[in-house]
């Protein structure tokens, strides 16, 4: 998809979420969904397969997100998938998150963890990262079992990696 079209979709999502008054929640839910689409080849295949009817793809989205995400988020993802832009969902959502962060003069910080963080941990981590980088951050936590343990935080070009996966890789290299 062209950059202008991604920009247009992200702007539309942003406007809808803002109008619904739950931008922070929608942004967070869409971010998780985008990462799920990114990491699961099977899910990506279903949501982007043009031979599967749009209704069926939207049904999959509703089954997947229903009960776990807000109605706005489900409808927005369903809209994107139904219009045949499922492949661009991660890019559209990333742009939405950037837009939302910019509105709050914040920078996006993506944190990957093998297990989910508690609210307290998320809050403390956001504070610690803000203190460390000297920037206001919009923290997005992604549960990624491939990191095995520990966390990896990406803030702009800066990466703070303290995952078990990376340590094992280092040990392998040393061996």
């Amino acid at each position, binding site marked *: 998809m062209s950059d202008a079209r991604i920009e247009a979709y992200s702007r539309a999502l942003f406007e809808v979420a803002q109008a619904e008054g739950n931008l922070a929640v929608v942004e967070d839910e869409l971010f998780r969904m985008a990462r799920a689409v990114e990491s699961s080849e099977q899910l990506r295949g279903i949501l982007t397969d043009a031979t599967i009817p749009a209704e069926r793809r939207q049904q999959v989205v509703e089954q997947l997100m229903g009960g776990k995400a807000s109605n706005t988020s489900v409808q927005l993802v369903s809209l994107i998938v139904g219009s045949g832009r499922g492949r661009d969902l991660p890019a559209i959502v990333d742009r939405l998150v950037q837009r939302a962060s910019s509105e709050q003069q914040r920078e996006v910080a993506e944190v990957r*963890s*093998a*297990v989910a*963080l508690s609210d307290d*941990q998320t809050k*403390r*981590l956001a*504070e*610690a*990262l803000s*203190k*460390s980088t*000297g920037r206001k951050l919009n923290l997005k936590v992604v549960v990624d079992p491939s990191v*095995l*343990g*520990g*966390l990896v*935080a990406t803030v702009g070009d800066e990466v*703070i990696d*303290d995952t*078990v996966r990376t340590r*094992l890789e280092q*040990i*392998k290299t040393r*061996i």
Partner: protein
Amino acid sequence: MNLLVTALFAVEDPTQTHHWLLPETAEIIYGGLASVIVFLGLYKFAGPMVKKSMKDRTEKIQKELDGAAAARSKSETDAAGIRQALGDIEAERRKILAEADAQATAILADGRARLVKEVAELEAKAVADLVAARGRSGEELRGEIARLSSAATSSAVAASLNERAQQELIESFIKSVGAAK
């Protein structure tokens, strides 16, 4: 008339000569003259032809003699050439045999030297291969040990990553990031 004829025949009998050997004088005279004329004619007209014929014949014989002499000379030259060639052939045979001997000796020496060199090269290659194989085996062994160690480490770490360990890692990360500035 008859009487006159009879009288003439009665005077000279043509069937009778004066002498049994010698002819009549007149006959000698015109016979001799005729002979002289015939002789002169022959001398005048046939003489040069006979002379030329004789000369040609002489020349032809001389030419044949010269040809025979030349042929003989050529035969002698050929014979000498053949005799010399025979001598040359013998010398050539000896020369060829000598050269063949020399070449055979050189080839033998060359082949022997090449074989010695090849054997030395093969020995060197075998030694190098042996060393390389030994090194390769060592490297493969080290690689295998590294792979197994790595797999074992991964398994051990994954097994030890229980909920408590995960939380400790998260807390450790938060603490270290917070203390970084």
